[in-house]
Every structure is written in C-alpha cells, then in structure tokens.
C-alpha cells in the first residue's frame, strides 16, 4: 500500500506559507524601519537598511508624563476586567453546564452579540445614558463593565471549551460528597482543572482592554490606546514605535499562552489516550 502523496507535494504549501509570512511581516518591518531608524522616510531603501537604528523614539514615549499613568490605568482596567469577567462568567458557565446544558447554544449566541454589534453602537447607548449616570461614568473604572461585554465572545468560548474538556458534573458531585461546599469545590476542584482556559480567557480579555479606543475616547478616559493615538499625532515616529512595541508584547503574551495551552492539551491527550487496563 503506497503512502498518501499530497497532490502538489510540499512546494505549493511552502509558497503559500512564505507569501502569507511576507504579507504579515512586511508591514511590520516597514513599520519598524519607520519607527526605529533615524533616516528621513524618503531615503528608506535597501542602501539604508542597516543605518541609524535607534530606540530613542520609544524612550521619548516613555519620557512623556502622560505615558505611565495611561499604562497604569490600562493595566488596572485589564486586571479589573479579568476579575469581573471571571467572577461573572465562571459561575454562570458552570451553572449552565451542570443545570441547563440545553441552554448552552442560547448563551453562546448571547455572548457573541458584542462581536456582531459594533462598539460604536455601545458608544451611542453610553451617550444617551451619560447625563443620567455621571456618578458612575465619571470614574475611570466605569470602563470595566463595557470591556467585560466586549470581551465576552472570546472569554466565554475559552471557559466553555475548558468545561467541555472535563467531566464537570462528576467532579463536582465527588467533591460535594466529600464534604466540600460550592466555594471550596470551585477553588480546589474546578479552577485548578480549568487553569489553561482561565489563563487563555484572561489573556484575551487583557488584549481587548489594551487595544480598545472607541469607548475610552467617548468617556474621555486616558487609557494607553488613547495616549497612543494622541502621542502618535504629536510624534508620529515615536508613536508608531510605541504601537510596534505594544504589538510585539501582545504577540509574546499569546506565544506564552499558546505554549501553556499546548502543554495542557498534550497532557490531556496523553491522559485520554492511555487505555485503562
């Protein structure tokens, strides 16, 4: 029996991969050159490829007095959003999985709504209620509930996938039969077995917060994306350098996430493939 031979061998997939890679990397490289080379844009070419690379643009951003407060606020918002999202979503998803599994499709649909309805629609709603809810909207942390909604499509899926991978009902029943209440069961059984899903949901939530501009701008909150926008207007080169750095940090975080998740998947696969004897 002959082994399966791909119709186009390895050449076509390799070409597709290279083209896709270039499509992704080329703009990043040009962005890096624009942001980090102290060479006039008109002179950026092959001959100046290695000339005058510098991170002075970035340091300029770091020296800006508005940068660190904006970064701090965004990190606080990311932390707050992660906590609120998990606090609301974990018990809800567990409840749905255990008690009303038939409602899973409906919940999935509801959580995907923020993905279908653009953020600007949410902003329009905020504008309407703003005069009546100033006491709440004046706080920087008023952004957190909106970010929770925006992150729902990503976070719910992540938690849901984690819950599907474990025998939730049996684990909960086992824990309760051993004398553990709901909170202890959550802390000692469910959360440790959903670690990868929770890490994944947290990263995705943080990524949404660190990149959100529309709502922050509407509510006039000095978050990192808003700082990036105004700073780029003032200092285009340094601003794009900062954008590039933010992008690289995000990619790095997702690479770590991918590694953590893969490790978890490998362990799960090895566990499932081990036939009981």
């Amino acid at each position, binding site marked *: 029996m002959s082994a399966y031979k791909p119709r186009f061998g390895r050449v076509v997939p390799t070409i597709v991969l290279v083209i896709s890679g270039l499509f992704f990397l080329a703009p990043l490289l040009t962005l890096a050159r624009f942001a980090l080379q102290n060479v006039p844009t008109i002179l950026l070419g092959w001959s100046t490829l290695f000339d005058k690379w510098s991170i002075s643009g970035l340091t300029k951003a770091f020296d800006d007095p508005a940068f660190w407060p904006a970064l701090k606020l965004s990190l606080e918002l990311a932390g707050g959003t992660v906590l609120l999202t998990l606090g609301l979503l974990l018990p809800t998803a567990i409840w749905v999985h255990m008690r009303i599994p038939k409602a899973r499709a409906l919940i999935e649909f509801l959580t995907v709504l923020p993905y279908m309805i653009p953020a600007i629609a949410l902003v329009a709603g905020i504008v309407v209620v703003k005069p009546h809810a100033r006491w709440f909207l004046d706080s920087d942390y008023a952004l957190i509930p909106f970010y929770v909604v925006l992150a729902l499509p990503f976070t719910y899926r992540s938690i849901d996938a984690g819950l599907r991978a474990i025998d939730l009902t049996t684990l909960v029943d086992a824990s309760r039969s051993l*004398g553990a209440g709901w909170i202890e069961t959550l802390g000692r059984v469910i959360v440790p077995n959903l670690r990868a899903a929770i890490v994944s949901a947290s990263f995705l939530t943080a990524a949404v917060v660190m990149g959100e501009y529309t709502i922050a701008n509407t509510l006039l909150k000095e978050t990192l994306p808003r700082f990036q926008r105004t700073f780029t207007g003032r200092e285009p080169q340094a601003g794009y350098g900062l954008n590039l750095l933010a992008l690289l940090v995000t990619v790095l975080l997702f690479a770590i996430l991918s590694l953590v998740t893969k490790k978890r998947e490998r362990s799960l696969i090895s566990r499932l493939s081990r036939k*009981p004897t």
Partner: protein
Amino acid sequence: MTTLDFISVRKTFGPTVALEGLDLNVRQGELISLLGPSGCGKTTALRIAAGFEFADSGAVHVANADISRTPAHKRNMGMVFQSYSLFPNLTVTDNIDFGLRTRRMSKTDRQRRVGEMLELVELTAFARRYPHQLSGGQQQRVALARALAVQPRVLLLDEPLSALDAKVRTTLRDEIRRIQTEVGITTLFVTHDQEEALAISDRICVMSQGRLEQLGTPTEVYRTPTTAFVARFVGSMNELSGTLSGPGEVSVLDVRLGAPHATGATGAAVTLLVRPEDLTLAETGLVGSVANVTFQGASTLVGVRLDVLDRLVSVDVGQGAADHLTVGDRVHVAVNAANAVCETVSQ
C-alpha cells in the same frame, strides 16, 4: 447503628416518573444492590440518597434521622462513581486527603488516615502518582479509598465496575466486597449487571419503571422470583406455553407439571418461566431435537427445539453430559416446575 431508609420516595423529571414510592431499608453493615435495566430509577435512588437530587415526596433517613433536605456536602456519604471521578490535578495521596481537609483534621491524623486507606486498597506504592498514571481499576480503588477515608455513614457505589474490562471487574468486585465487609459499612450498590449483583450482595433490590419488583437475598431472587419481570431479568429463562389444569398444576402439551406458584382459573392460558438448570434431558418429557450445543466451561447448554410448541429451550447439563449429542438428535426434556413462575396470558 447506621441504617439507610427510603420511605415512599417519589421523583419525577418532567413527565417521566423516575421513582414511584420506593420503600427500602438497608440494614447496618449490609450491602444491597439496586439492580435493573437502564431507566428503572436505580441511579436516581442513589443520587437522592447522596443528596444530588431531592425527592418530590417521601423521605430518606440515615440512622433514623431525616436527611431528605440536607445538602450533599453535609450528609457524610461516601460515593464512588461510574466514570473515573478522581481529581486530575491531585495525586493519589491528595485525592484521598481531599475529604479529610474539608473536615479540618490535623495534618498528623490526615497522614495516618491516608496511609491506612492506601494500605486497605493496596496502593501504597502509587501514593505520589496522578490519576492519569493509573489504570482504570487502580483509579476506582483510589476512589473507593477516598470515599472511605472520611468514615462515611453510608457507602454509595454507582456502577463502579462498568467501565472496566471483565477480568479487572471480577477482581475489583471481590475487593469491594472484602473491604465493605472488613469496614462493616452500610452500602448501596447500583448495577445493571445481574452477575455482579448476585456475587456481591447481601440482598438485591430488583427495580423496574421506578418501582421495587423484588427484594431478597441473591438465592431468593434467582431461585424464587416473585414476578415475571424478575424471572426474566435475573438469569436466563425458558418460556413454555401451557394451560392451568388445576391448582398448582400446569399442562404443557400433554405433560402435566407440578407448579406450586401457578394460580388462576382452570383452563387459563399461562406461560411457565423455567430456569435452564430446571430442565433435564430424560427418557420421557417434552419431545424435541437438538438445535445447538454450547460449551460454557463448567457446564454445557443444550438448545432444544420442542416439536409442537416450535420453541427453543435451553437445558443446562453437567460437564461431559452433552459430549454424545449432535445437532438434530431427538431428545426428551423433563421439566421441574417447582420454582417456576407462572404468568397468565391475557387473551
């Protein structure tokens, strides 16, 4: 004295009646098996005892105290589940320790208790392993140790052997019985496997459609089933059509059989349910021809197709007794209907 009582327990799920007035008393140190087909309500009864479900009406008592509304985590029941229920993130030791920690026991006491449990299930060498590093049988032994570690008042076993292969199943079955007897714990064991129930139980509670059909020792349930359902469900049965020819007497073709359990009007059409071991190959009796011979190790089953009834019956003959038989041989089948269940056929 820890007894477990179900008192007129009824439970419905929407329009489906899962339990219809279940009354059952499990005595101190006794192992009762709930045996029945899928959907008969046996797991529901167990889950109500555990506190995972609440009865619509009726009560559950442990040691004569009503626990019907007590939440699961306050009932002090030990439970072993059908699917491997060990916590994947914890080692064998930590799994067994789980319930002890919830009870805020001192570290020294916990360590001693975990050690005792590991010895009881003979898994001391596996203490530091994670569940995925154990076989199915080992996992269920750890689950049993974990359930017993907290010194529960009642042990609940929900088909703990059904995910295991035949050999491990038999070994673990005997081990569960050994440990249960050693610990002396009141136990409710759910199974759909009649062989398992017959082997392990002090008494068997056969259930059908949410009702208790028969409660008795394995011998009683097997030898003297009280209903046709129990007769058919536990062990194998031959069905012979006949008529009631008098009190305690049934005629099958022209052969009159003494069937003490047969009641009803003379002349009524009945079906006699007779075990294969109550049929013998003899010089006289119902006439038929050998349809098949099945060697079963300790005994041999001979399938005989009866001439007039055109019905295949199984005759359990001793080792070597069927050596001379071949398919098509003419034989006579004698029937001992002393323990037969007689079912009236509705016209």
